[in-house]
């Protein structure tokens, strides 16, 4: 294995190098049956070698596309590595996608082979196989329940590796030759956009583009081979695969795979990763969990916790205004550090965290402040699937101002006349799947790609994200507003999971609010309010009162800033269904599908503007005991001041 493969321009060559240079280092760790197993770069490279030979034997050729569906598992990364080894293109799909979605994506990407994690995914693929004539091979990893399956195109992952091992014995140089034949300009991945606005689109990337962006990402975070990351978002999200597989190939860091999403918090505590990808939604969930558990603790712990947070906020403000904290505050910070911040970091599995990146949505400055108080280096990163993600990142000193940071060194960013963010870099997509016209529609002749995001480039070089271009609304009086900013402020309450604000073409802003069942449930228990299930909880007058108080606070906050004073939330309603991935209201990465929500609750929105205090809505019988139409309540929110200044936000 000592022979080098020239150039480090494909992921396969990078893996070959990692295996040759540091073969005994951990590439992947996976918790299975309670124990963290270890897969070294040499083991991963061997698996890629054997599996790729077996795939080639079964007729999968250079340039063909291979889909992988499943969670972050060593076998999934092995399948991607094998695909790259034989010069194929990996197409990671979302495990939560419906069979129809998967069928559409397999057809769109003209996939020849599919790696499906388990019976659930195999069932999905076999169901749709008649509609996907291109798929010749379906490989499964977990054999539980698979004994009954008899299908000519079906193969066991483990058997394929054995087959490949035999082939490798006959042709020991085949793997190296196949790897050496790859070039940076070859296609490496196809990712599907999350579809927050419109149908998911397949986006094609070359090795060179993604390796370039990953190098920039690794450098910006200061990651090295001694770092560890935990991968738990779906691999179909480019961002996650860049933080796991691609970073591991480029920088040699170790990817940890949790046992399951249910055990994530324990697994994270055991591993204590040094690098983490996260989203505002996940941070919200962690924050809610801490707050509710602290409130439950009560007594001295709660008092200390509150004081620790208050002090940290004071000191944070002072630092931002340029003062050094005094001796008393410094002593306080050190004391609370030992008593509160460090134990909390440990419980969250963040004790060794050096770099945490939040993306996918705008991070509320207060939320960011909370985590920074705990001593966690949490920074906002901005990018889209089409731009291979790492476009801008907050540097030290940029935090807490609501921007997404400065563009990375090798990227050019400008704001168009329409207020849209445009990006030029070597890391852009090669194109949309089989649709050259779609690419031409978003990229100018001189290489500027329209991101579809509205933004502002501030004088100090920081990029401020406003919202998606098509989400930006204009009130009847002409006031421009960005729903995303308002929603993230509403969401900051531990009792609220999500919010969708409306108001385009209307005379004021209204909000649909989705409460956090767990947190509000606990609150209801404390206040002796009986309820059964989410829908019932979301219809209680007391809960409406709780949310109304919060929205009044949000309105007061908006009123303090002249730029947002006109954007008062006038009325709101609580939605009876939890907004989730399974009911189609969220994308697999947890972003709200605005259209799905406004369509489903169209009657409610009309009611909000018609001044009604109640709207009847057909439910999908979500919970036992709730059939037929339910009455949804609407409440006025207390507004601050009269919207006088009519200027654009």
């Amino acid at each position: 294995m000592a022979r080098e493969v020239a150039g480090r321009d494909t992921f396969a060559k990078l893996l070959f190098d990692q295996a040759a240079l540091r073969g005994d280092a951990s590439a992947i760790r996976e918790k299975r049956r309670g124990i963290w197993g270890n897969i070294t770069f040499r083991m991963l490279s061997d698996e890629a070698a054997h599996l790729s030979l077996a795939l080639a034997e079964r007729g999968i050729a250079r340039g063909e596309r291979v889909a992988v569906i499943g969670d972050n598992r060593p076998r999934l990364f092995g399948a991607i590595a094998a695909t790259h080894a034989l010069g194929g293109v990996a197409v990671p799909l979302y495990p939560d996608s419906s069979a129809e979605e998967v069928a559409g994506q397999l057809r769109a990407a003209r996939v020849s082979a599919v790696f499906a994690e388990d019976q659930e995914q195999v069932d999905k693929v076999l169901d749709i196989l008649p509609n996907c004539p291109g798929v010749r091979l379906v490989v499964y990893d977990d054999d539980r329940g698979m004994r009954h399956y008899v299908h000519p195109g079906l193969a066991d992952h483990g058997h394929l590796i054995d087959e490949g091992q035999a082939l490798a014995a006959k042709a020991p140089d085949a793997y190296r030759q196949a790897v050496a034949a790859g070039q940076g300009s070859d296609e490496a991945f196809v990712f599907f956009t999350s579809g927050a606005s419109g149908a998911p689109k397949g986006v094609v990337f070359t090795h060179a583009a993604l390796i370039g962006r990953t190098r920039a990402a690794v450098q910006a975070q200061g990651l090295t081979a001694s770092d560890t990351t935990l991968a738990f978002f779906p691999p179909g999200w480019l961002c996650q695969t860049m933080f796991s597989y691609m970073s591991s190939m480029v920088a040699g860091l170790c990817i940890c795979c949790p046992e399951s999403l249910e055990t994530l918090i324990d697994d994270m505590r055991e591993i204590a990763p040094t690098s983490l990808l996260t989203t505002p939604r996940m941070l919200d969930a962690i924050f809610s969990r801490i707050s509710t558990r602290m409130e439950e603790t009560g007594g001295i712990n709660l008092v200390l916790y509150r004081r620790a947070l208050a002090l940290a906020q004071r000191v944070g403000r002072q630092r931002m205004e340029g003062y050094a904290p005094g001796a008393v505050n410094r002593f306080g910070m050190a004391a609370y550090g030992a008593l509160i911040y460090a134990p909390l970091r440990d419980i969250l599995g963040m004790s060794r965290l050096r770099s945490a990146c939040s993306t996918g949505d705008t991070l509320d400055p207060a939320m960011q402040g909370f985590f920074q108080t705990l001593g966690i280096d949490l920074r906002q990163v901005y990018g889209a699937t089409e731009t291979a993600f790492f476009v801008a990142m907050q540097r030290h000193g940029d935090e807490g101002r609501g921007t997404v940071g400065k563009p990375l060194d090798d990227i050019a960013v400008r704001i168009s006349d329409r207020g849209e963010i445009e990006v030029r870099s070597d890391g852009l997509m090669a194109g949309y799947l089989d649709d050259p016209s779609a690419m031409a529609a978003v990229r100018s002749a001189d290489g500027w790609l329209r991101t579809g995001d509205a933004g502002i480039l501030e004088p100090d070089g920081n990029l401020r994200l406003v919202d998606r271009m098509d989400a930006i609304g204009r009130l009847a009086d002409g006031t421009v507003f960005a729903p995303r900013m308002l929603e993230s402020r509403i969401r900051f309450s531990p009792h609220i999971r999500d919010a969708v604000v409306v108001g385009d073409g209307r005379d004021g802003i209204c909000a649909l609010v989705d409460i956090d069942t767990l947190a509000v449930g606990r609150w209801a228990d404390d206040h002796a309010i009986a309820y059964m299930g989410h829908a019932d909880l979301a219809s209680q007058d007391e809960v409406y009162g709780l949310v109304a108080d919060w929205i009044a606070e949000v309105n007061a906050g908006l009123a303090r800033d002249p730029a947002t004073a006109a954007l008062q939330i006038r009325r709101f309603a609580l939605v009876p269904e939890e907004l989730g991935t399974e009911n189609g209201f969220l994308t697999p990465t947890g972003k709200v599908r605005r259209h799905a929500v406004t369509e489903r609750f169209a009657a409610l929105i009309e009611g909000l503007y018609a001044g009604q205090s109640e709207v009847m809505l057909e439910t999908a019988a979500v919970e036992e005991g709730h059939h037929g139409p339910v009455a949804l309540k609407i409440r006025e929110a207390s507004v601050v001041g009269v919207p006088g200044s009519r200027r654009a936000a």
Partner: protein
Amino acid sequence: MNVVTQSHIPGVERAYPIGEPILELDSISLRFGGVQALTNISFDIREHEVRAIIGPNGAGKSSMLNVIGGLYTPQDGTIRFRGEKFANMTPGKAARLGIARTFQNIALFKRMTVLENIMAGRRLFTHANFLEVALQLPRARREELESREKAEEIIEFLEIQQIRKTQVSRLPYGLQKRVELGRALAAEPQILLLDEPMAGMNVEEKQDMCRFILDVNDHYGTTMVLIEHDMGVVMDISDRVVVLDYGKKIGDGSPAEVRSNQDVIDAYLGVAH
């Protein structure tokens, strides 16, 4: 009696086809003082099958299971295990023969974790004495590791990874039932006796439990004997069903046969006796 070779998925051979009788009960009668709990009951249990004992409340189902498990000694009748006759079965003997069970009112160690409970089910396979365990001598260490490995396999099989370190008393009822099944499985039984595994569960929990019962049978080939008073659930997952009423056997056969048996229909519809 036609022997079932079809698995629960149509058109596919079972991994463990139903074999010869593993347990034969002949003319079993059980009395508690003046109360005749079981009267002259005979039936057999074939290897690798899912066998249900059903009947209305008070029909003698649990007594029957306790006779098989060795908790009760019948006054009359014989029990044969793989052809060998046992005059009086005891719980210890039953365990060594490979008979494990779960209880109607969950009998877990409430203050121990899920993992500890399941490892406790490995008692038959550990031989290290108190001193060896206390001093962590090689045999004790090896056995502990083996137990842990087996327990983790079961935890994965039953999909309870997220609660492995949770104290049992803090778990909801449905999960406790699943843990109890896990502890019984840890004994690697040949026959698994399940006393009302689905009692008190909601529909979703019942479906989960049915799936696990079939999965255990399919994956480990374990012979399953389960008691249930809810006929509907049992009919879908059993190969053969025995029906008891007032301590007497009133039906025995495939679910279809039992369903069309007039005595059974009467017993369930509550005809006056």
